[in-house]
Protein backbone atom coordinates (compact mmCIF):
# COMPACT_ATOMS: atom_id res chain seq x y z
CA UNK A 1 0.00 0.00 0.00
CA UNK A 2 2.70 2.42 1.04
CA UNK A 3 4.73 1.26 -1.90
CA UNK A 4 1.89 1.97 -4.29
CA UNK A 5 1.54 5.44 -2.86
CA UNK A 6 5.24 5.96 -3.31
CA UNK A 7 5.07 4.99 -6.97
CA UNK A 8 2.10 7.27 -7.39
CA UNK A 9 4.05 10.23 -6.06
CA UNK A 10 7.01 9.25 -8.20
CA UNK A 11 4.86 9.35 -11.29
CA UNK A 12 3.20 12.64 -10.38
CA UNK A 13 6.57 14.28 -9.92
CA UNK A 14 8.34 12.94 -12.97
CA UNK A 15 5.85 12.01 -15.67
CA UNK A 16 4.78 15.48 -16.88
CA UNK A 17 8.31 16.54 -17.70
CA UNK A 18 9.44 13.18 -19.03
CA UNK A 19 6.43 12.97 -21.30
CA UNK A 20 7.19 16.30 -22.92
CA UNK A 21 10.87 15.48 -23.08
CA UNK A 22 10.23 12.13 -24.74
CA UNK A 23 7.96 13.63 -27.31
CA UNK A 24 10.18 16.57 -28.18
CA UNK A 25 13.65 15.07 -27.92
CA UNK A 26 13.70 11.28 -27.73
CA UNK A 27 11.17 10.39 -30.40
CA UNK A 28 12.72 12.65 -33.07
CA UNK A 29 16.13 11.31 -32.17
CA UNK A 30 14.99 7.73 -32.64
CA UNK A 31 13.36 8.63 -35.96
CA UNK A 32 16.70 10.16 -36.92
CA UNK A 33 18.45 6.86 -36.18
CA UNK A 34 16.03 5.14 -38.52
CA UNK A 35 17.02 7.47 -41.38
CA UNK A 36 20.68 6.57 -40.91
CA UNK A 37 20.07 3.29 -42.70
CA UNK A 38 18.88 4.90 -45.89
CA UNK A 39 20.34 6.59 -48.90
CA UNK A 40 18.19 9.69 -49.01
CA UNK A 41 18.64 13.36 -49.82
CA UNK A 42 16.17 14.59 -47.23
CA UNK A 43 13.51 15.71 -49.68
CA UNK A 44 10.27 14.03 -48.73
CA UNK A 45 9.13 13.34 -52.27
CA UNK A 46 12.44 11.80 -53.38
CA UNK A 47 13.16 8.08 -53.04
CA UNK A 48 14.54 6.63 -49.83
CA UNK A 49 16.67 3.59 -50.53
CA UNK A 50 17.46 1.21 -47.70
CA UNK A 51 21.17 0.51 -47.71
CA UNK A 52 21.76 -1.26 -44.44
CA UNK A 53 25.05 -0.42 -42.81
CA UNK A 54 26.61 1.16 -45.90
CA UNK A 55 26.51 4.64 -44.41
CA UNK A 56 28.38 3.45 -41.34
CA UNK A 57 31.00 1.63 -43.38
CA UNK A 58 31.46 4.64 -45.58
CA UNK A 59 32.26 7.05 -42.79
CA UNK A 60 35.17 4.95 -41.62
CA UNK A 61 36.88 5.97 -44.86
CA UNK A 62 35.64 9.53 -44.98
CA UNK A 63 38.80 11.51 -44.41
CA UNK A 64 37.03 14.81 -44.03
CA UNK A 65 34.84 13.33 -41.34
CA UNK A 66 37.75 11.72 -39.52
CA UNK A 67 39.67 14.96 -39.62
CA UNK A 68 36.65 16.85 -38.38
CA UNK A 69 36.24 14.36 -35.55
CA UNK A 70 39.84 14.80 -34.52
CA UNK A 71 39.55 18.60 -34.66
CA UNK A 72 36.42 18.49 -32.55
CA UNK A 73 38.08 16.36 -29.91
CA UNK A 74 41.10 18.65 -29.88
CA UNK A 75 38.93 21.73 -29.71
CA UNK A 76 36.82 20.31 -26.91
CA UNK A 77 39.73 19.15 -24.78
CA UNK A 78 41.47 22.52 -25.08
CA UNK A 79 38.26 24.42 -24.42
CA UNK A 80 37.28 22.37 -21.41
CA UNK A 81 40.63 23.16 -19.84
CA UNK A 82 40.66 26.87 -20.61
CA UNK A 83 37.00 27.52 -19.91
CA UNK A 84 37.10 25.84 -16.54
CA UNK A 85 40.43 27.32 -15.51
CA UNK A 86 39.34 30.83 -16.40
CA UNK A 87 35.81 30.34 -15.05
CA UNK A 88 37.05 29.01 -11.72
CA UNK A 89 39.56 31.84 -11.42
CA UNK A 90 36.81 34.35 -12.05
CA UNK A 91 34.58 32.68 -9.49
CA UNK A 92 37.30 32.80 -6.83
CA UNK A 93 37.95 36.45 -7.62
CA UNK A 94 34.38 37.62 -7.48
CA UNK A 95 33.57 35.72 -4.31
CA UNK A 96 36.44 37.41 -2.51
CA UNK A 97 35.59 40.32 -0.30
CA UNK A 98 36.29 43.00 -2.87
CA UNK A 99 33.68 45.76 -3.03
CA UNK A 100 33.42 45.73 -6.79
CA UNK A 101 33.05 41.95 -6.97
CA UNK A 102 29.35 42.22 -7.72
CA UNK A 103 29.92 44.57 -10.59
CA UNK A 104 32.72 42.41 -11.96
CA UNK A 105 30.52 39.37 -11.67
CA UNK A 106 27.93 40.95 -13.92
CA UNK A 107 30.50 42.15 -16.40
CA UNK A 108 32.27 38.83 -16.66
CA UNK A 109 29.02 37.07 -17.36
CA UNK A 110 27.94 39.43 -20.11
CA UNK A 111 29.64 37.68 -23.05
CA UNK A 112 27.37 34.72 -22.54
CA UNK A 113 24.35 36.93 -23.05
CA UNK A 114 25.20 37.43 -26.70
CA UNK A 115 23.94 34.92 -29.18
CA UNK A 116 26.63 32.89 -30.91
CA UNK A 117 26.09 34.08 -34.45
CA UNK A 118 26.73 37.78 -33.95
CA UNK A 119 29.50 37.00 -31.52
CA UNK A 120 31.48 35.31 -34.26
CA UNK A 121 31.14 38.35 -36.50
CA UNK A 122 32.32 40.66 -33.72
CA UNK A 123 35.38 38.55 -33.11
CA UNK A 124 36.20 38.67 -36.79
CA UNK A 125 36.63 42.40 -36.24
CA UNK A 126 38.76 41.76 -33.19
CA UNK A 127 41.12 39.39 -34.96
CA UNK A 128 41.28 41.47 -38.09
CA UNK A 129 41.58 44.95 -36.58
CA UNK A 130 42.59 44.67 -32.94
CA UNK A 131 45.03 41.80 -33.23
CA UNK A 132 46.88 43.28 -36.16
CA UNK A 133 46.91 46.63 -34.37
CA UNK A 134 48.44 45.12 -31.24
CA UNK A 135 50.94 43.31 -33.44
CA UNK A 136 51.96 46.56 -35.11
CA UNK A 137 52.27 48.48 -31.86
CA UNK A 138 54.10 45.89 -29.79
CA UNK A 139 56.13 44.34 -32.58
CA UNK A 140 54.89 40.91 -31.55
CA UNK A 141 53.63 40.19 -35.02
CA UNK A 142 54.32 36.50 -34.69
CA UNK A 143 51.68 36.28 -31.95
CA UNK A 144 49.23 39.02 -32.85
CA UNK A 145 48.09 38.60 -36.44
CA UNK A 146 44.82 37.51 -37.96
CA UNK A 147 44.58 34.00 -36.52
CA UNK A 148 41.56 33.22 -38.63
CA UNK A 149 43.61 32.94 -41.82
CA UNK A 150 46.14 30.55 -40.44
CA UNK A 151 45.38 26.86 -40.66
CA UNK A 152 47.12 26.16 -37.37
CA UNK A 153 45.86 29.13 -35.42
CA UNK A 154 42.24 29.26 -36.56
CA UNK A 155 41.32 26.46 -34.19
CA UNK A 156 42.95 28.32 -31.31
CA UNK A 157 40.97 31.38 -32.29
CA UNK A 158 37.86 29.28 -31.88
CA UNK A 159 39.02 28.03 -28.48
CA UNK A 160 39.78 31.62 -27.50
CA UNK A 161 36.35 32.93 -28.42
CA UNK A 162 34.57 29.96 -26.91
CA UNK A 163 36.47 30.50 -23.67
CA UNK A 164 35.55 34.14 -23.69
CA UNK A 165 31.91 33.24 -24.13
CA UNK A 166 31.66 30.34 -21.70
CA UNK A 167 33.96 31.37 -18.84
CA UNK A 168 31.28 33.57 -17.29
CA UNK A 169 28.80 30.76 -17.63
CA UNK A 170 30.77 28.20 -15.67
CA UNK A 171 31.74 30.99 -13.29
CA UNK A 172 28.12 31.06 -12.13
CA UNK A 173 28.16 27.36 -11.43
CA UNK A 174 31.40 27.66 -9.49
CA UNK A 175 30.09 30.66 -7.55
CA UNK A 176 27.11 28.61 -6.43
CA UNK A 177 29.50 25.87 -5.38
CA UNK A 178 31.89 28.17 -3.51
CA UNK A 179 29.07 29.92 -1.68
CA UNK A 180 27.84 26.51 -0.63
CA UNK A 181 31.04 25.74 1.29
CA UNK A 182 30.32 26.51 4.93
CA UNK A 183 32.51 29.33 6.20
CA UNK A 184 33.22 27.39 9.43
CA UNK A 185 35.08 24.68 7.56
CA UNK A 186 37.51 27.10 5.97
CA UNK A 187 37.81 29.03 9.22
CA UNK A 188 38.63 25.85 11.12
CA UNK A 189 41.34 25.02 8.62
CA UNK A 190 42.79 28.48 8.96
CA UNK A 191 42.94 28.13 12.72
CA UNK A 192 44.65 24.78 12.25
CA UNK A 193 47.33 26.66 10.34
CA UNK A 194 46.60 25.68 6.73
CA UNK A 195 47.98 28.09 4.16
CA UNK A 196 45.80 29.70 1.53
CA UNK A 197 46.93 27.29 -1.16
CA UNK A 198 46.46 24.31 1.12
CA UNK A 199 42.97 25.44 2.04
CA UNK A 200 42.18 25.74 -1.66
CA UNK A 201 43.52 22.31 -2.60
CA UNK A 202 42.41 20.32 0.44
CA UNK A 203 39.07 21.92 1.18
CA UNK A 204 37.76 24.07 -1.61
CA UNK A 205 38.56 21.71 -4.47
CA UNK A 206 37.09 18.54 -2.94
CA UNK A 207 33.97 20.40 -1.83
CA UNK A 208 33.66 21.88 -5.30
CA UNK A 209 33.47 18.45 -6.91
CA UNK A 210 29.74 18.72 -7.68
CA UNK A 211 30.40 22.03 -9.38
CA UNK A 212 33.24 20.42 -11.32
CA UNK A 213 30.95 17.63 -12.46
CA UNK A 214 28.44 20.12 -13.73
CA UNK A 215 30.90 22.53 -15.31
CA UNK A 216 32.99 19.88 -17.01
CA UNK A 217 29.94 18.22 -18.39
CA UNK A 218 28.42 21.46 -19.61
CA UNK A 219 31.60 22.57 -21.34
CA UNK A 220 32.11 19.14 -22.86
CA UNK A 221 28.61 19.03 -24.25
CA UNK A 222 28.66 22.60 -25.51
CA UNK A 223 32.13 22.09 -26.97
CA UNK A 224 31.18 18.96 -28.86
CA UNK A 225 28.03 20.57 -30.20
CA UNK A 226 29.47 23.97 -31.07
CA UNK A 227 27.97 25.27 -34.29
CA UNK A 228 27.00 28.92 -34.53
CA UNK A 229 30.30 30.42 -33.36
CA UNK A 230 32.05 28.01 -35.69
CA UNK A 231 29.88 29.13 -38.56
CA UNK A 232 30.14 32.85 -38.04
CA UNK A 233 33.77 33.05 -36.91
CA UNK A 234 35.60 30.76 -39.31
CA UNK A 235 32.92 29.14 -41.43
CA UNK A 236 35.01 25.97 -41.10
CA UNK A 237 37.95 27.55 -42.88
CA UNK A 238 40.61 28.14 -43.84
CA UNK A 239 40.66 25.02 -45.98
CA UNK A 240 38.40 23.08 -43.58
CA UNK A 241 40.94 23.52 -40.77
CA UNK A 242 38.14 24.32 -38.33
CA UNK A 243 35.24 22.32 -39.69
CA UNK A 244 34.03 20.90 -36.41
CA UNK A 245 31.65 18.08 -36.07
CA UNK A 246 28.25 19.77 -35.96
CA UNK A 247 29.19 21.78 -39.00
CA UNK A 248 30.38 18.69 -40.80
CA UNK A 249 27.03 16.99 -40.23
CA UNK A 250 25.20 20.13 -41.19
CA UNK A 251 27.14 20.39 -44.44
CA UNK A 252 26.56 16.73 -45.16
CA UNK A 253 22.82 17.01 -44.61
CA UNK A 254 22.03 20.40 -46.08
CA UNK A 255 25.12 21.08 -48.18
CA UNK A 256 25.66 17.79 -49.96
CA UNK A 257 22.09 16.63 -49.47
CA UNK A 258 23.11 13.33 -47.90
CA UNK A 259 20.52 13.15 -45.18
CA UNK A 260 20.89 9.48 -44.33
CA UNK A 261 24.65 9.61 -44.30
CA UNK A 262 24.63 12.75 -42.17
CA UNK A 263 22.40 11.02 -39.65
CA UNK A 264 24.76 8.05 -39.56
CA UNK A 265 27.63 10.39 -38.75
CA UNK A 266 25.57 12.04 -36.05
CA UNK A 267 24.80 8.74 -34.40
CA UNK A 268 28.35 7.45 -34.44
CA UNK A 269 29.60 10.68 -32.99
CA UNK A 270 26.85 10.71 -30.40
CA UNK A 271 27.82 7.25 -29.22
CA UNK A 272 31.45 8.30 -28.91
CA UNK A 273 30.86 11.51 -27.01
CA UNK A 274 28.17 9.97 -24.85
CA UNK A 275 30.66 7.32 -23.82
CA UNK A 276 33.31 9.93 -23.03
CA UNK A 277 31.13 12.38 -21.16
CA UNK A 278 29.13 9.84 -19.22
CA UNK A 279 32.40 8.33 -18.07
CA UNK A 280 33.46 11.79 -16.99
CA UNK A 281 30.23 12.34 -15.06
CA UNK A 282 30.55 8.92 -13.46
CA UNK A 283 34.13 9.53 -12.35
CA UNK A 284 33.65 13.01 -10.98
CA UNK A 285 30.39 12.07 -9.28
CA UNK A 286 32.27 9.37 -7.41
CA UNK A 287 34.71 11.93 -6.14
CA UNK A 288 32.01 14.17 -4.78
CA UNK A 289 31.99 14.52 -1.03
CA UNK A 290 28.62 13.78 0.48
CA UNK A 291 27.66 16.33 3.08
Amino acid at each position, binding site marked *: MANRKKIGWYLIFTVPLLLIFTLIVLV*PFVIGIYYAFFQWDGIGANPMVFNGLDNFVRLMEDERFLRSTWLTVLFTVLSVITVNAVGLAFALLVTSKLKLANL*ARTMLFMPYL*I*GGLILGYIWQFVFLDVFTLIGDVTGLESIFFNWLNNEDFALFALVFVFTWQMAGYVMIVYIAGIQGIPGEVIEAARIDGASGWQRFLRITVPLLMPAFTISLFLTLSYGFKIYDVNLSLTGGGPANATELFAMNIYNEIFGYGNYGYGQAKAIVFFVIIAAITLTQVYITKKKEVEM
Partner: protein
Amino acid sequence: MKAIGNWSKEILLILMALVFLSPIYIIFINSFKNRLELYDNTLAFPEEFSLQYYSAAMQRMDFLNAFLNSIYVTVVSVVFIVILSSMTAWMLARSGNWVSTVIFMTLIATMLIPFQTIMMPLMQMVTGITRTTGIPLYNTLSGLIFMNIGFHAALSVFLYHGFIKSIPISLEEAATIDGATKFGVFWRVVFPILTPITATVMILNVILIWNDFLLPSLTLIDKDLRTIPLSVFYFFGEFTIEWNLAMAGLTLTIIPVVIFYIIAQKYIIKGIGEGAVK
Protein backbone atom coordinates in the same frame (compact mmCIF):
# COMPACT_ATOMS: atom_id res chain seq x y z
CA MET B 1 48.77 50.01 3.82
CA LYS B 2 46.23 47.28 3.53
CA ALA B 3 43.64 49.73 2.28
CA ILE B 4 45.86 50.66 -0.63
CA GLY B 5 46.44 47.02 -1.44
CA ASN B 6 42.70 46.46 -1.57
CA TRP B 7 42.24 49.52 -3.69
CA SER B 8 44.66 48.34 -6.31
CA LYS B 9 43.02 44.93 -6.27
CA GLU B 10 39.64 46.53 -6.89
CA ILE B 11 41.01 48.50 -9.81
CA LEU B 12 42.77 45.48 -11.21
CA LEU B 13 39.59 43.47 -11.04
CA ILE B 14 37.56 46.07 -12.89
CA LEU B 15 40.30 46.60 -15.46
CA MET B 16 40.35 42.90 -16.13
CA ALA B 17 36.59 42.83 -16.48
CA LEU B 18 36.76 45.75 -18.87
CA VAL B 19 39.33 44.08 -21.10
CA PHE B 20 37.16 41.01 -21.04
CA LEU B 21 34.20 43.07 -22.09
CA SER B 22 35.96 44.98 -24.87
CA PRO B 23 34.30 43.07 -27.73
CA ILE B 24 30.99 44.32 -26.41
CA TYR B 25 32.38 47.80 -26.82
CA ILE B 26 32.65 47.03 -30.53
CA ILE B 27 28.99 46.10 -30.66
CA PHE B 28 27.94 49.22 -28.82
CA ILE B 29 30.13 51.69 -30.65
CA ASN B 30 29.23 50.42 -34.08
CA SER B 31 25.51 50.69 -33.48
CA PHE B 32 26.00 54.43 -34.00
CA LYS B 33 27.99 54.36 -37.23
CA ASN B 34 27.14 54.26 -40.88
CA ARG B 35 28.92 51.89 -43.21
CA LEU B 36 31.58 54.41 -44.13
CA GLU B 37 32.50 55.13 -40.52
CA LEU B 38 32.55 51.44 -39.71
CA TYR B 39 34.90 50.85 -42.62
CA ASP B 40 37.18 53.74 -41.65
CA ASN B 41 37.80 52.48 -38.17
CA THR B 42 35.99 49.71 -36.35
CA LEU B 43 37.26 50.83 -32.98
CA ALA B 44 36.87 54.60 -33.12
CA PHE B 45 34.07 56.59 -31.55
CA PRO B 46 31.22 57.46 -33.89
CA GLU B 47 30.89 61.00 -35.19
CA GLU B 48 27.78 61.41 -33.10
CA PHE B 49 25.82 59.30 -30.67
CA SER B 50 22.50 59.64 -32.39
CA LEU B 51 19.81 57.10 -31.70
CA GLN B 52 18.64 57.00 -35.30
CA TYR B 53 19.70 53.40 -35.88
CA TYR B 54 18.00 52.35 -32.68
CA SER B 55 14.72 53.89 -33.66
CA ALA B 56 15.07 52.54 -37.21
CA ALA B 57 15.84 49.07 -35.86
CA MET B 58 12.94 49.22 -33.43
CA GLN B 59 10.58 50.22 -36.16
CA ARG B 60 11.66 47.59 -38.62
CA MET B 61 11.70 44.89 -35.98
CA ASP B 62 8.22 45.85 -34.79
CA PHE B 63 10.01 45.90 -31.49
CA LEU B 64 7.18 46.23 -29.01
CA ASN B 65 5.26 43.30 -30.44
CA ALA B 66 8.38 41.15 -30.71
CA PHE B 67 9.38 42.14 -27.19
CA LEU B 68 6.02 41.08 -25.75
CA ASN B 69 6.18 37.78 -27.62
CA SER B 70 9.67 37.14 -26.32
CA ILE B 71 8.71 38.02 -22.76
CA TYR B 72 5.66 35.79 -22.92
CA VAL B 73 7.52 32.81 -24.36
CA THR B 74 10.48 33.19 -22.03
CA VAL B 75 8.56 33.71 -18.81
CA VAL B 76 6.05 30.93 -19.33
CA SER B 77 8.69 28.48 -20.56
CA VAL B 78 11.01 29.19 -17.64
CA VAL B 79 8.27 28.94 -15.04
CA PHE B 80 7.23 25.54 -16.35
CA ILE B 81 10.82 24.41 -16.65
CA VAL B 82 11.56 25.38 -13.06
CA ILE B 83 8.47 23.71 -11.64
CA LEU B 84 8.64 20.50 -13.64
CA SER B 85 12.36 19.95 -13.63
CA SER B 86 12.86 20.68 -9.93
CA MET B 87 10.16 18.16 -9.07
CA THR B 88 11.59 15.59 -11.43
CA ALA B 89 15.15 16.14 -10.27
CA TRP B 90 14.19 15.81 -6.62
CA MET B 91 12.42 12.51 -7.23
CA LEU B 92 15.29 11.19 -9.30
CA ALA B 93 17.88 12.26 -6.76
CA ARG B 94 16.07 10.98 -3.68
CA SER B 95 14.94 7.59 -4.94
CA GLY B 96 18.11 5.72 -5.55
CA ASN B 97 16.68 2.93 -7.73
CA TRP B 98 17.89 1.90 -11.15
CA VAL B 99 14.94 3.44 -12.97
CA SER B 100 15.98 6.85 -11.73
CA THR B 101 19.55 6.26 -12.78
CA VAL B 102 18.49 5.24 -16.27
CA ILE B 103 16.18 8.23 -16.62
CA PHE B 104 18.85 10.59 -15.36
CA MET B 105 21.52 9.19 -17.65
CA THR B 106 19.16 9.33 -20.62
CA LEU B 107 18.38 12.94 -19.87
CA ILE B 108 21.97 14.04 -19.72
CA ALA B 109 23.01 11.93 -22.69
CA THR B 110 20.51 13.79 -24.83
CA MET B 111 22.26 17.03 -23.98
CA LEU B 112 24.96 15.85 -26.37
CA ILE B 113 22.70 15.62 -29.39
CA PRO B 114 23.29 18.44 -31.86
CA PHE B 115 19.96 20.11 -32.56
CA GLN B 116 20.58 19.93 -36.30
CA THR B 117 20.19 16.17 -36.28
CA ILE B 118 16.74 16.13 -34.75
CA MET B 119 15.14 19.22 -36.15
CA MET B 120 13.74 17.60 -39.27
CA PRO B 121 12.02 14.64 -37.57
CA LEU B 122 10.88 16.99 -34.82
CA MET B 123 9.19 19.34 -37.23
CA GLN B 124 7.58 16.45 -39.07
CA MET B 125 6.18 15.17 -35.82
CA VAL B 126 5.03 18.53 -34.58
CA THR B 127 3.10 19.35 -37.73
CA GLY B 128 1.82 15.78 -37.83
CA ILE B 129 0.39 16.20 -34.33
CA THR B 130 -1.11 19.53 -35.22
CA ARG B 131 -2.75 18.09 -38.31
CA THR B 132 -4.09 14.86 -36.84
CA THR B 133 -5.13 15.90 -33.35
CA GLY B 134 -5.74 19.58 -33.81
CA ILE B 135 -3.47 20.43 -30.88
CA PRO B 136 -1.93 23.70 -32.04
CA LEU B 137 1.77 23.00 -31.59
CA TYR B 138 2.85 24.46 -34.88
CA ASN B 139 2.92 28.20 -35.53
CA THR B 140 1.78 29.10 -32.03
CA LEU B 141 3.63 30.57 -29.09
CA SER B 142 2.20 27.84 -26.85
CA GLY B 143 3.69 25.21 -29.13
CA LEU B 144 7.05 26.93 -28.94
CA ILE B 145 6.80 27.00 -25.15
CA PHE B 146 5.98 23.32 -25.12
CA MET B 147 9.07 22.56 -27.20
CA ASN B 148 11.24 24.80 -25.06
CA ILE B 149 10.24 22.79 -22.01
CA GLY B 150 11.28 19.59 -23.75
CA PHE B 151 14.60 20.94 -24.95
CA HIS B 152 15.69 22.58 -21.74
CA ALA B 153 14.45 19.89 -19.40
CA ALA B 154 17.70 17.96 -19.43
CA LEU B 155 19.99 20.83 -18.48
CA SER B 156 17.66 21.96 -15.71
CA VAL B 157 17.19 18.52 -14.21
CA PHE B 158 20.94 18.06 -14.36
CA LEU B 159 21.59 21.27 -12.44
CA TYR B 160 18.91 20.59 -9.82
CA HIS B 161 20.02 17.02 -9.42
CA GLY B 162 23.57 18.04 -8.60
CA PHE B 163 22.41 20.58 -6.07
CA ILE B 164 19.86 18.34 -4.35
CA LYS B 165 22.51 15.68 -3.83
CA SER B 166 24.50 18.20 -1.84
CA ILE B 167 21.79 19.20 0.65
CA PRO B 168 21.11 17.18 3.81
CA ILE B 169 18.15 14.84 3.67
CA SER B 170 17.37 15.20 7.39
CA LEU B 171 14.99 18.16 7.01
CA GLU B 172 12.84 16.31 4.53
CA GLU B 173 12.71 13.28 6.77
CA ALA B 174 11.63 15.43 9.70
CA ALA B 175 8.82 16.91 7.67
CA THR B 176 7.72 13.48 6.48
CA ILE B 177 7.50 12.29 10.05
CA ASP B 178 5.36 15.32 10.81
CA GLY B 179 2.88 13.85 8.33
CA ALA B 180 3.35 16.09 5.34
CA THR B 181 2.69 14.61 1.89
CA LYS B 182 5.49 14.39 -0.67
CA PHE B 183 3.97 17.37 -2.37
CA GLY B 184 3.97 19.35 0.85
CA VAL B 185 7.50 18.33 1.72
CA PHE B 186 8.77 19.38 -1.65
CA TRP B 187 7.08 22.74 -1.91
CA ARG B 188 7.35 23.76 1.75
CA VAL B 189 10.72 22.37 2.69
CA VAL B 190 12.81 21.44 -0.32
CA PHE B 191 11.98 24.05 -2.91
CA PRO B 192 12.85 27.03 -0.69
CA ILE B 193 16.28 25.50 -0.07
CA LEU B 194 16.73 25.20 -3.82
CA THR B 195 16.46 28.95 -4.35
CA PRO B 196 20.07 29.54 -5.36
CA ILE B 197 20.05 26.78 -7.96
CA THR B 198 16.59 27.87 -9.07
CA ALA B 199 18.03 31.30 -9.74
CA THR B 200 20.85 29.70 -11.73
CA VAL B 201 18.47 27.53 -13.71
CA MET B 202 16.28 30.53 -14.39
CA ILE B 203 19.18 32.67 -15.56
CA LEU B 204 20.58 30.06 -17.91
CA ASN B 205 17.20 29.16 -19.37
CA VAL B 206 16.14 32.76 -19.77
CA ILE B 207 19.27 33.44 -21.79
CA LEU B 208 18.93 30.34 -23.95
CA ILE B 209 15.28 30.92 -24.68
CA TRP B 210 15.55 34.66 -25.09
CA ASN B 211 18.34 34.36 -27.67
CA ASP B 212 17.09 31.27 -29.45
CA PHE B 213 16.74 31.71 -33.18
CA LEU B 214 16.61 28.28 -34.76
CA LEU B 215 13.62 26.73 -33.00
CA PRO B 216 11.32 29.77 -33.27
CA SER B 217 12.33 30.24 -36.88
CA LEU B 218 11.21 26.71 -37.61
CA THR B 219 7.97 26.77 -35.67
CA LEU B 220 6.60 30.27 -36.12
CA ILE B 221 5.28 31.57 -39.41
CA ASP B 222 2.97 34.49 -38.72
CA LYS B 223 4.67 37.82 -38.69
CA ASP B 224 3.00 38.96 -35.49
CA LEU B 225 4.27 35.92 -33.59
CA ARG B 226 7.95 36.75 -34.20
CA THR B 227 10.21 36.90 -31.19
CA ILE B 228 13.06 39.41 -30.94
CA PRO B 229 15.82 37.25 -32.47
CA LEU B 230 13.49 36.40 -35.36
CA SER B 231 12.70 40.01 -36.05
CA VAL B 232 16.37 40.90 -36.38
CA PHE B 233 16.60 38.89 -39.60
CA TYR B 234 15.93 41.92 -41.78
CA PHE B 235 19.40 43.22 -41.07
CA PHE B 236 21.18 40.11 -42.27
CA GLY B 237 21.30 40.16 -46.04
CA GLU B 238 22.24 37.30 -48.29
CA PHE B 239 25.84 38.48 -48.48
CA THR B 240 26.07 41.46 -46.20
CA ILE B 241 24.93 42.75 -42.87
CA GLU B 242 23.49 46.15 -42.02
CA TRP B 243 25.88 46.48 -39.13
CA ASN B 244 24.49 49.53 -37.39
CA LEU B 245 20.96 48.14 -37.31
CA ALA B 246 22.10 44.65 -36.42
CA MET B 247 24.23 45.98 -33.57
CA ALA B 248 21.45 48.25 -32.37
CA GLY B 249 19.04 45.32 -32.57
CA LEU B 250 21.48 43.18 -30.63
CA THR B 251 21.94 45.80 -27.94
CA LEU B 252 18.18 46.07 -27.60
CA THR B 253 18.01 42.29 -27.36
CA ILE B 254 20.50 41.90 -24.56
CA ILE B 255 19.52 44.82 -22.34
CA PRO B 256 16.48 43.03 -20.85
CA VAL B 257 18.56 39.95 -20.10
CA VAL B 258 21.28 42.00 -18.43
CA ILE B 259 18.69 43.64 -16.19
CA PHE B 260 17.20 40.28 -15.38
CA TYR B 261 20.61 38.85 -14.60
CA ILE B 262 21.50 41.68 -12.25
CA ILE B 263 18.29 41.16 -10.32
CA ALA B 264 18.47 37.38 -10.30
CA GLN B 265 22.08 37.01 -9.28
CA LYS B 266 21.34 38.44 -5.84
CA TYR B 267 19.18 35.43 -5.20
CA ILE B 268 22.03 33.06 -5.78
CA ILE B 269 24.04 34.63 -3.00
CA LYS B 270 21.26 35.51 -0.60
CA GLY B 271 19.61 32.15 -0.95
CA ILE B 272 22.79 30.34 -0.06
CA GLY B 273 23.41 32.58 2.91
CA GLU B 274 19.98 32.00 4.37
CA GLY B 275 20.06 28.31 3.61
CA ALA B 276 23.18 27.99 5.73
CA VAL B 277 21.76 29.93 8.67
CA LYS B 278 18.84 27.61 9.42
